[in-house]
């Protein structure tokens, strides 16, 4: 039972998070518009998100997904470690599998680190009111745009945000392919298609999220 349940939980929460990333990235594209358009649009968008009760539910589902994804990943890794108590002295795993597939835990840890920093940068400031007070824009919406923009003018944050999108890409690529199989999708041609989509998806997410801080920085 546990062998199937834990992996399925990781797969389901993972797929949900993948969907969320699509929405997130589309919204972030607003940041690429000229500042005068982008500020208003971005701030009103984020206000809508904060105040819509349906989105609130989705937000809680999101937090729960991240939590469950991490918890079950830890449980799975723990069991897997126990199942292989002695490691090989020489192991050329790169000849039979991708590096990412062998290191999903490590990639996940980077992403978790990212999420923590990311939440501290935005969620903690805007929702919890920690740190410097966030102002409002001309329309009276909380000026999330200013928070983002100032963050992405700090070179250290830009490097941090952009660089960590690389592990994200690898994690998504393997995770997406694996999730379908975990959930019992075994149609061979279908899986080949999934593999292609996973690659395209991972590249878009990784490049998309990674390039925005750079563009904002150099804009």
């Amino acid at each position, binding site marked *: *039972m*546990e*062998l*199937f349940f*834990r*992996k399925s939980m990781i797969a389901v929460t993972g797929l949900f998070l993948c969907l969320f990333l699509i929405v997130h990235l589309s919204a972030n594209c607003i940041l690429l518009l000229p500042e005068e358009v982008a500020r208003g649009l971005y701030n009103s968008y984020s206000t809508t998100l904060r105040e819509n009760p349906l989105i609130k539910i989705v937000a809680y589902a999101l937090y729960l997904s991240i939590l469950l994804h991490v918890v079950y990943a830890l449980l*799975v890794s723990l*069991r*897997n470690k*126990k*199942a*292989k*108590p*002695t*490691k*090989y*002295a*020489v*192991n*050329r*795993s790169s*000849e*039979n*599998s*991708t590096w990412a*597939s*062998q290191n*999903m835990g490590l990639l996940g840890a980077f992403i978790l680190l990212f999420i923590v920093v990311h939440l501290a940068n935005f969620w903690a400031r805007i929702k919890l009111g920690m740190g410097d007070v966030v102002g409002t824009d001309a329309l009276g919406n909380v000026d999330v745009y200013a928070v983002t923009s100032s963050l992405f003018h700090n070179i250290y944050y830009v490097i941090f945000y952009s660089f960590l999108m690389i592990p994200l890409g690898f994690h998504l690529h*393997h995770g997406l*392919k*694996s999730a*379908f*199989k*975990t*959930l*019992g*999708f*075994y149609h*061979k041609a279908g*899986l080949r298609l999934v593999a292609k989509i996973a690659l395209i998806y991972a590249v878009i997410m990784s490049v998309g999220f990674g390039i925005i801080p750079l563009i904002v920085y150099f804009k």
Partner: protein
Amino acid sequence: MKVAFRIWRQDNPNEKGGFKEYQVDNLNADMSFLEALDHLNELLVLRNEKVVAFEYDCREGICGQCGVFINGRAHGPHDNVTTCQLHMRSFQDGETIVIEPWRAKSFPVIKDLIVDRSAFDRIIEQGGYISAKTGTAPEANAIPIGKEISDRAMDAAACIGCGACVATCKNSSAALFTSAKINHLNLLPQGQPEAYRRVIEMTAQMAKEGFGHCTFTGACEVECPEGISITNIAEMNARYFKAKIFS
């Protein structure tokens, strides 16, 4: 041809074990890898040392008894081949070849390069069969089975139970082995009456034996001498969920 074998030596399950290096010359490239080890063992006997314990039987790639980790790969440097079908021509003259036993909690080392794979037998005992007694069979052509189904069952049935999938898997997952057997039988009409029970009980035994989770690294299907596809695991998962819902 001359090589150095760096071999894991462990006298019994409780001993700690470690590597020992042996220089062996007078080999030739056409020798099989196991024959080179035979040759080493003859040298050891003449030197009044204990021979290296390793397993084999058919030496033609079909019985599944041989299998060691060679230079970081299960069954050696090639894909989809057993240890017994590996030849010395795959190595460089003067090379150091590192040989380790299969590593997995569920495959404890018995001696040197020999491990205990009886966990596989216990998984099969939990449903890797069709419960029909000798003498009860209907006429063979009474139940037609389409070629596609029959071929897929055959693909899965090809498993030789060597354990390379578990050995190479970073999680020591036995999912490829277990799924191959489940799919072989559950695809066939003869396997239907026990289909749900089979997948639930065999996977429960797989968990009980301490194997890890499958995370689809795909290493298993590359090392599997029969090239059993990893989609078998996905298919097993589907069968499991179906069994959980409908049984």
